[in-house]
C-alpha cells in the first residue's frame, strides 16, 4: 500500500495516485493517519521499531505493508469542534508523532523531512540564503532594517541599477508588495517604526523548477543558465535533505536569482507536461526499493545523521 499523506484535492497526490494505480499498485490518500477513526500504534525500543495503522478494520497495515509514502501535509487536523488552544496542542502532538514515524518507516518516504523543515514548511526565502549560497545558487540582495534612511538608500541603490521600487515582504507571511511611490515609502516608514522590514530587489516573472531525485524538471523552456544551475540545485536538494523540492528563479537587475524555495512543491506552479514528469519521477522514487528491507530506513537515517 502506498500512502499519500495530503488532501484528497491535492493535485500532486492525485497525479501520483493515478500513476501508481496505472501500475496496479494500491494507494490511499489520507490527510492525517492519526486522526480518528484511524487507529495507530507504534512501538519503539533499542532493537526494534514496529507499527500498525488501521485505516480499514479488514486490512491493518504494518510497517512492512507500507511500501512508500508521499508526504504533502504534516499532520493536519480538521479545526472543527476544537478550542483554539487545544487544537494548537494537538496539532503539535500529531506533527511530532508523524515526523518520527515517517523516519522510522523502512520504505521510501518523499520527503523524509528534517525537523527544521518539518516545523517551518514555508519559511521566508531569506532563511534559505545560507544554504543556497553554499550550494552556489544566486540570491538577491536583501536588507532588514528599521531605519528609514537605510531603506531609502537601498531604494536609491536599486534605482541606480535602472529599476523602480523595492520589494517588501514580512518575514512571517508569504506575501510581497512593491514599494514604488511616495505613499508606499511613507507607509513603509510607518511600519518601520513598529518593526524592522525586509526589502529586496524587484524581479521579473518567476520560473519554477522542481528537483525530484536525480531529475530537474523546469516549467517551460529552461533558462540559458540551466546548465550551470542544475548541479547547484542538486547540491541544494541533497544538503537540505529533500528528494522533492521546487525553487522559483527570476531575473533581477543583478541577474537570475532564487526568489523562493518550496519544500512542499505546489503542483499548480507547473503545467500539465511538467506535472506528469514530476508524478512519474515521484513514482520511480517511491517504487524504487519496493522489495527492500528495514535496513534502508536505518541506513537513510545514518547517512543523514551519523
Amino acid at each position, binding site marked *: 500500500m502506498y500512502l499519500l499523506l495530503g488532501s484528497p484535492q491535492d493535485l500532486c497526490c492525485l497525479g501520483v495516485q493515478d500513476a501508481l494505480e496505472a501500475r496496479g499498485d494500491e494507494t490511499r490518500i489520507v490527510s492525517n493517519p492519526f486522526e480518528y477513526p484511524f487507529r495507530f500504534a507504534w512501538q519503539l525500543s533499542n532493537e526494534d521499531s514496529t507499527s500498525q495503522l488501521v485505516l480499514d478494520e479488514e486490512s491493518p497495515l504494518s510497517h512492512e505493508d507500507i511500501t512508500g509514502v508521499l508526504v504533502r501535509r504534516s499532520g493536519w487536523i480538521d479545526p472543527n469542534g476544537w478550542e483554539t488552544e487545544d487544537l494548537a496542542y494537538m496539532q503539535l502532538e500529531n506533527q*511530532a508523532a508523524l515526523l*518520527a514515524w515517517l523516519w522510522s518507516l523502512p520504505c521510501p518516504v518523499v520527503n523524509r523531512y528534517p525537523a527544521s523543515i518539518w516545523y517551518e514548511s514555508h519559511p521566508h526565502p531569506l532563511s534559505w540564503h545560507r544554504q543556497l549560497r553554499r*550550494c*552556489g545558487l*544566486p540570491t538577491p540582495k*536583501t536588507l532588514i532594517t528599521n531605519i528609514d534612511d537605510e531603506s531609502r538608500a537601498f531604494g536609491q541603490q536599486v534605482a541606480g541599477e535602472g529599476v523602480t521600487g523595492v520589494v517588501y515582504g514580512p518575514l512571517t507571511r508569504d506575501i510581497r508588495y512593491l514599494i514604488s511611490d511616495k505613499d508606499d515609502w511613507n507607509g513603509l516608514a510607518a511600519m518601520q517604526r513598529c518593526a524592522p522590514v525586509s526589502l529586496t530587489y524587484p524581479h521579473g516573472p518567476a520560473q519554477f523548477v522542481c528537483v525530484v531525485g536525480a531529475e530537474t524538471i523546469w516549467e517551460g523552456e529552461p533558462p540559458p543558465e540551466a546548465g550551470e544551475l542544475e548541479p547547484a540545485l542538486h547540491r541544494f536538494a541533497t544538503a537540505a535533505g529533500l528528494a522533492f523540492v521546487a525553487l522559483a528563479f527570476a531575473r533581477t537587475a543583478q541577474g537570475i536569482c532564487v526568489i523562493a524555495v518550496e519544500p512542499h512543491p505546489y503542483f499548480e506552479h507547473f503545467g500539465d507536461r511538467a506535472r506528469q514528469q514530476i508524478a512519474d519521477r515521484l513514482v520511480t522514487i517511491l517504487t524504487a526499493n519496493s522489495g527492500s528491507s528495514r535496513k534502508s530506513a536505518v541506513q537513510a537515517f545514518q547517512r543523514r545523521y551519523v
Partner: protein
Amino acid sequence: MILVCGGLADSVTELVCARLNDCGYAYRFLDLGTYPDGCQIKWYWNGSGPRGFISAPDWKLDLEELTGVYVRFLGPEARAPVPNIAPEIVPTIHFEYDAGLMTLLEDLPCAVVNRVDGGMSNNSKVYQALMVRQFGLLTPPTLVTNDPAAARRFYEEHNGEVIYKSLSGIRSIVKRLQPEQFDRLSLLQNGPAQFQAFIPGDNVRVHTVGEELFPTRVQSDVVDYRYARREGRDVEMEPATLPHNIAESCLRLAQHLDLLFAGIDLKVTPNGEYYCFEVNPCPGFLYYEKHGGQPISLALANLLRDGLKATTEPQFQNSSLTHRE
C-alpha cells in the same frame, strides 16, 4: 564582542550576563522584552553572510565584531506592550521581530548558542529518540498511539510500570499511568500520546558546552524531579562522572544537532545502563549550576568569547551566477 539576547527578568540570561561580567568579557545585552524599541538595525545580504549593525541607545555593535551570541527567546508574557497596535495583532508583530532575529542568527558565522534549526528536533521527543539510538544511548521501550486498547496492552506488558508524557516540545509533567486513569484513555482518540516503560535509577542531566561536558546526578523519588518540590519532596544533586563512551555519545549527539550548548536528560539504571530521554536546546541550567556546583556558565562564557574556529563556506567562486560586490 559577545551579544546576549534575552529578557531582563530571565534568571538564566541574568546568570550568563553575571558570569560574563565576572570574567571581564565584553558583551552587549539586547533586551528582547522591549526589542526593537530604542534599537536600530541594518542587516544586509549581498551574496555572502549578513553585514551591518545593531545599536541600542548606549551602544552600537558591528556584526563583524561578534565572537559569540547567546539567545533565549521570550514568551509573550515577558514582552513590553507594543504601542498603538491592536492587542490581537501583537503576537504577529512579536513573531515578526523574532523571525528577523532568527534569520540573522542562523546566518552569522560566529558561535550562536543556539541556532534555531539545531533545536527543532526537540519538537518531537520520539524523533530525538530515533536519533539517540544511533549514538549509542538507550531508548526506553516506547509506545506512540491513539488507540486506548494498545495503551492498555503496553501497560500490561510492562507490568504497570509505565509513564506518559507529551510527544512534542510542549513541556509536560511526566506521570505514571495508573489504573484509575484507564477511563481517560478513550481521550486518545483525539490524538496520539507517548507511553514509556518506567526506567528505574537516578536522573543524570548532562550539559554539553562545545567540547566540555557537565554531568549532574539527580536523586529523587519523584517520577519527574523537576516538580518534586511542588509535591513536597526533596531533590539532591551532585556532579557525576560518565563512562567515556557515554560522554562521547553525548558530545557527538549535541554536535550532530548543531547545538553548542545542550541539556541532555539521561537516566542511569542500577545496572549502569544509560537511557536518554531528551536533548534540550535551550537548557535552563541555573538550577543545576546552583545545586550541582558545576561551572557551566563559565564554560559558556568562554565559548562565547573564544567563538568558533573560522569556518570557510564552500563557495562556487567560478560560477558566473553568484553575485558579489
